[in-house]
Structures are given as C-alpha cells and as structure tokens.
C-alpha cells in the first residue's frame, strides 16, 4: 500500500554548548595534589576582611551572647519579655529555629549519600558543620530559657542523691534524649569523612601546626582495612541518622502538639515541623555555600552554579511541601470551627501583630515560588542566597507565630496578654553571631571540601561518547 510521506516537524535549532554534560560532576578533574593545595591555600589565606569579620563577630558574641546571658542569669527571667500567658518566648523560637537549621546538614549529607546523588560531594562537609553548629545554638537557647539553668543537669538520667530520675512522661525529656542523640551522632558523622582530609593536612602541616592534626587524624594511613571500616561506618551513619533526624524535629513538634492548647494540639505537627526544618535548613545551606564560595579562595572550582541549582530545586520542592502542610494545619482547625482555634486564627490574622502572619507567607511561599522555578535564577548563587535569607526570616517568624503568638490565646481570656521581647533580642543576635563565628574559625582549621570524596567522585565518572553527544557515565566503583 502506498504510504503518504508526511514531513516531520523539525526540532528548533539549539546551540551545541548548552548540551554540555552535567558540570557539577566536575569533568575537569585536577590532580589530587593540586586539589589538596587549593584547599590548603583556601585555609591559609586570611584577608583583612576575614579578620574584621571575625573580630566583629567575636565582639557580638561577647556582648550579645556571653554578657547578655550572664545578665539574664544574674537577674532572672524578669529581664526577658516572657510573662503569663506567654511563658515561652523567643528562646524557644530560637531553639526550634536552630534545630531546623541543623537539619539540612544531615539531610543533604545523609540522604544524598544514601541516594548516591553525586552532586553532593563538594558541599557535604559545609552542610554537616551546619548541623553541629546549629545544634549548639539550639542547646544554648534551651538553657537560656530555663528558670534555674544551674540545675539543668537534673534532666540527665543519672543516679543521684535525690533518688530521683527524670520523668519520661514529659515531651521535654524525649526532646532532651533526641537532641542529645542527634548532637552526638551528627558530630561523629561529621568527624568520620574528615579523618582522611585531616590526614592529608597532617602530611602537609609544618611545625607546631602538625601536632593537632596528628592527634585528630588518629594515625590514619589509608590501608584497605581502614578504608573499608570507614566506608562501613559511614554507611551505617548515613542510614541510621536519617530516622533520628526525622525523630528529632517530630519530637520538637510534640513539645507543642502534646499540650492541651488551641493551635498546638495538632496531629500534623510532626511532619509539618520536619518540613519546616528542612525549609529553613536548605535555605541556610544556600547562604553558607554562597558565603564560602564568594569569600574563600579556589572555592569557585569546587562549588559551581550547578550545585546551587541542585540546592535551589530542593528548596523549591521543600517550599511547596511546607505550603501543603501549613495548609493542612490551617484548614483543619478552620473547618472544625473550635471556638478557641477560631479565636487564635483571628488573632494571628487580625490581631495587634497581624502583619507577621502575612510576612511569613510571603517569605516562605511567594518569594521562593516566584524565583526558584527558573534554572537560570536558581543557578545564580547570590540570588539563591537572598532567597535563602528571606526563607529563614519567614521560618523564624513562623516559629514566632506558633509559640509566642499562639500562647497569647488560651482558654482563660482574662489572662490574654501580648509578649514584648527584651533581652531575647540580643541573645538572638548572639546565637547568630556565634553560629557564623564558628564557621569562620572552622573554615581556617579544617578543610571545608572533602577532597578525597571529590576525587573519588571524579574517578568514578567518565565521559562517554554516544553518537555525537558526550554523556557522563557513572562507574560505581564503591
């Protein structure tokens, strides 16, 4: 039979170099020694800008963290803004916020490692550092919040002269256990992949600087057995720390969800808080990576726009998930029409500080959705960092809406009062400064790039020519 030939639609012509292979796999490998030197150089070079920044942060930490906290302890919580009914103030806001920040580190490192997302390799360390440093701030904020912080050790389950053990009925105890577990494990998880890099630095360090690295490198040489053990341990951590990470923020949310309070007693709080944590955490990663890339030497080789693109996609995804959960948390009380829930929603939307609620939605949803949908913008580090700043502001406000604002409304209207923070503001600045300061110091003490992982990745990737295209292939040598 006669087939009628029909002219097929021609594809629109496209410029060839846009078809380049996935660059974040770094198909321009450099010799290991060269990469080592680049990383070491980035550690050794401290410009005057660096010293000014470090000095400022140190000053802020001394005043807004150390002194402010001393002032708080010396005079009691009366110098803070907490009152009845807002017994929990910005301290708890900061706690939840920093725990959230700390999540992205593990998330990126562990989940991407488990899923063998190759793009993760250059920035896992920076992210893992965020976990540890963020948890430090979270712990500090909890202790600031306590009325008699000098007795905080009573929360530890240890045999004592009072014959009294902590009460595991209390969500705070679950929280305490979970956060401690998370802090210990994520710190170990940060240390494991660091060992070979420390060994690398050890081999190059001169004079007294050699000593700490000798000690920290534990005599790592790189024998097959050592590598094998390291890999096994890292795999165990990568798989085990993910459920712990989810449990931590779920339990943090239970601190609120277990309470008999309007706005808190909600079953969706667990996943909602986890997503919220990732939301702010991802954004924080973007900010940190931008800072590292733009301030430290040679980092443009390791951290590339494509990495930001990857993170940008995750941010968009998480932002959408957050919106979904928030809507859940909003719709159910609204539909249920419980008296107190309705009053609370009216308070957040029309109360004396109504604007917070709208700022939160704009920062958390509108801005990311407007910017992150486009690859070109996602791949622009500074733009991504700015979006990250907005998201973090939005997420901080979200916690503020959940804690001090929701606490204003209870079932005894005679006690409703607004919360006006005082010394908390300085302590918030203090925690942020300490967080950044720790990064500044770490960036000069340990390699922020896991060189051996990068090299491992480079070795496991080759460019294969398929027809006319050069495609990247992953040879899984692990």
């Amino acid at each position: 039979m006669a087939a009628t030939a029909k002219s097929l639609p021609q594809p629109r012509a496209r410029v060839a170099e846009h078809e380049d292979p996935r660059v974040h796999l770094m198909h321009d490998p450099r010799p290991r020694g060269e990469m080592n030197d680049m990383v070491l150089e980035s550690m050794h070079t401290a410009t005057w800008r660096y010293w000014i920044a470090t000095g400022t942060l140190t000053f802020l930490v001394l005043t807004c963290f150390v002194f402010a906290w001393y002032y708080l302890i010396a005079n009691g919580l009366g110098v803070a803004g907490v009152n009845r009914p807002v017994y929990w103030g910005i301290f708890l806001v900061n706690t939840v916020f920093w725990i959230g920040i700390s999540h992205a580190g593990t998330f990126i490192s562990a989940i991407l490692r488990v899923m063998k997302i190759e793009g993760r390799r250059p920035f896992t360390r920076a992210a893992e550092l965020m976990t540890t440093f963020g948890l430090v701030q979270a712990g500090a904020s909890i202790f600031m919040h306590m009325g008699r912080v000098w007795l905080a050790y009573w929360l530890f389950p240890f045999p004592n002269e009072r014959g009294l053990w902590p009460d595991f009925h209390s969500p705070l105890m679950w929280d305490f256990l979970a956060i401690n577990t998370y802090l210990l494990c994520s710190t170990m998880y940060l240390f494991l992949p660091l060992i070979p890099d420390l060994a690398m630095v050890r081999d190059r360090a001169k004079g007294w600087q050699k000593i700490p690295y000798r000690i920290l490198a534990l005599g790592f040489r790189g024998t097959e057995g050592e590598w094998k053990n390291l890999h096994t341990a890292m795999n165990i951590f990568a798989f085990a720390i993910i459920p712990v990470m989810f449990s931590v923020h779920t339990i943090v949310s239970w601190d609120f969800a277990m309470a008999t309070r309007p706005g808190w007693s909600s079953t969706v709080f667990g996943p909602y808080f986890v997503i919220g944590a990732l939301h702010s955490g991802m954004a924080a990663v973007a900010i940190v990576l931008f800072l590292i890339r733009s301030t430290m030497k040679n980092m443009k080789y390791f951290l590339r726009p494509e990495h930001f693109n990857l993170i940008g996609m995750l941010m968009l995804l998480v932002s959408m998930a957050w919106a979904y959960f928030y809507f859940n948390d909003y719709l159910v009380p609204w539909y249920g029409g419980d008296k107190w829930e309705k009053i609370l929603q009216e308070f957040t939307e029309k109360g004396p500080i109504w604007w917070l609620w709208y700022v939160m939605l704009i920062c958390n949803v509108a801005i990311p959705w407007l910017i992150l949908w486009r690859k070109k913008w996602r791949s622009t580090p500074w733009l991504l960092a700015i979006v990250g700043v907005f998201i973090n502001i939005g997420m901080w406000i979200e916690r503020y809406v959940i804690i001090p604002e929701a606490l204003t409304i209870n079932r005894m209207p005679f006690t409703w009062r607004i919360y006006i923070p005082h010394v908390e503001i300085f302590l918030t600045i203090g925690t942020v400064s300490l967080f950044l300061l720790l990064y500044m110091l770490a960036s000069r003490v340990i390699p922020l790039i896991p060189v051996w992982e990068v090299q491992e990745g480079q070795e496991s990737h080759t460019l294969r020519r398929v027809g006319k295209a050069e495609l990247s292939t992953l040879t899984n040598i692990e």
Partner: protein
Amino acid sequence: MANDLQLPVFTNTSEQEVSGKWGMVIDQDLCTGCQACVAACSMENNVPFVGEEDANYGRSMHWIRIERFWSGTFPEVKMTPYQPMLCQQCHNAPCEPVCPVFASVHSASEDTNLQVYNRCVGTRYCANNCPYQVRVFNWRDYTDARARPWLTSLQNQLSPDVTVRRRGVMEKCTFCIQRIHQAEQVAASENRSIADGDVTPACAQACPADAIVFGRIDDPNSRVSQAALNARGYHQLDELRTTPRITYLHGASNGSNG
C-alpha cells in the same frame, strides 16, 4: 517495693470524680469580688508582691484571681459574675506529666496537685499546659531582701509552714496543704479521722460572703459534697476532662435592665 504494672486502660472519669479527696465549691452568685480571698491567700502562703510594672505585665503572683467580663454596651451592659480562679487540683492534671523533673506531681494521699519547688528547674511547661492559667512563676527574686530592702521588716510575717520560693520556680495554689496536714496530724493524735470542717483554706476562711466551701468530697454528707449537688454546679472547661476538684455554682449575670 511492689508495683502493679499500671498499663494504660480507658478510665471512666466519673469514677475519678467521686474518688477525689479534697474539693471546693465556689458560689459565683455570692462572690462579691471583694478580694478578701486573694489577700488571705497571699498572707497565708508567703506570696510575694511584684510591683506595678510587673503586675501589669502579667507577672503578679496571685495564687487566686477574681475574673469578670462584660457583655453589651451601656446602658444594656452586664458584668458576668465574679469568678475566682485558682488551681483546680485536677485528677488528670495536664500540668503534671509534662514536667521533665517530677516537680509537678500528684499526691497519692491527698489527691491534690503538688508543686515541689526545690525540684523545679523552670521550664514553665506546666504553666503552658494548664488550661486554667493558674500557675505563677517567680520571674525575679521577689522574696530576696538583699535586692528589696523594704522586705526585711515585712518578712517578719513569713509563715514557717510554707516554703519561701526563690527566683526561677513555678508555684500555685496548694489547697493550703499545710493546714490539711496539720489537721490530719491533730486528728491522728486524737485517733479519729478528719471531720468535716477541720480544714479551711485561707481563702474560704476569709470569704465574707462564705462563697467558698471546702471539705472532703469523698464524704457524701460533707458540706462541700452537698453544695456540689446544687443544680447550678459546673466544672471549668469540663470538656477537657481534667476532672477538676472545684465545682463552680453559676451566678446570675447582673447588670442594668435585668
């Protein structure tokens, strides 16, 4: 010591309501809002005063407060009956399980709600979780005479039966537990069980309108049990099933034009 494994079972709250020991009935129709109970409570329990600013910021230490609301506008305005609000001594107390250090525990012997000051580390979770908002926190050293020299002479009045609370601990109404224990000791020394009327908390003792009745609710003939049978009786926030030990008697909302 032997413990029966208390596995979670569905508990019938009505059972617990009668199983309580101490209870109170507050008649809002009689309460004239005169604050005598507040004064008596503060004098009996070494409750400190906090000064104008802190009091206005919701930091006053009243263990019992008298609430009132308005409805309507002039001239059809009404004031809701005065409502003394104090610790309801719930059986299923929401404040208790949330404390990480057992500072807020349930008294097995008195079935009241204890606050152990020297255990408290000040997480303030209990206060958040109290639906009645009757827990007060020592935001500052309100009892420290070094910081507040005027207290040196005022503190001659402190009762030795009641702990003086320091900064950073939570506190609340105790049903005047010191009086309960004293009465129990007296009764024990006379080989008898506590009779109705042996114990009167400071608030009930002072109330000029006698709007507060206190006693054994496990004794159906006691004055408080009888008063609790009143048709006007209700529990605050009963929907939460905290099984409070205080029964309120509705008062007529009063105001202009009936």
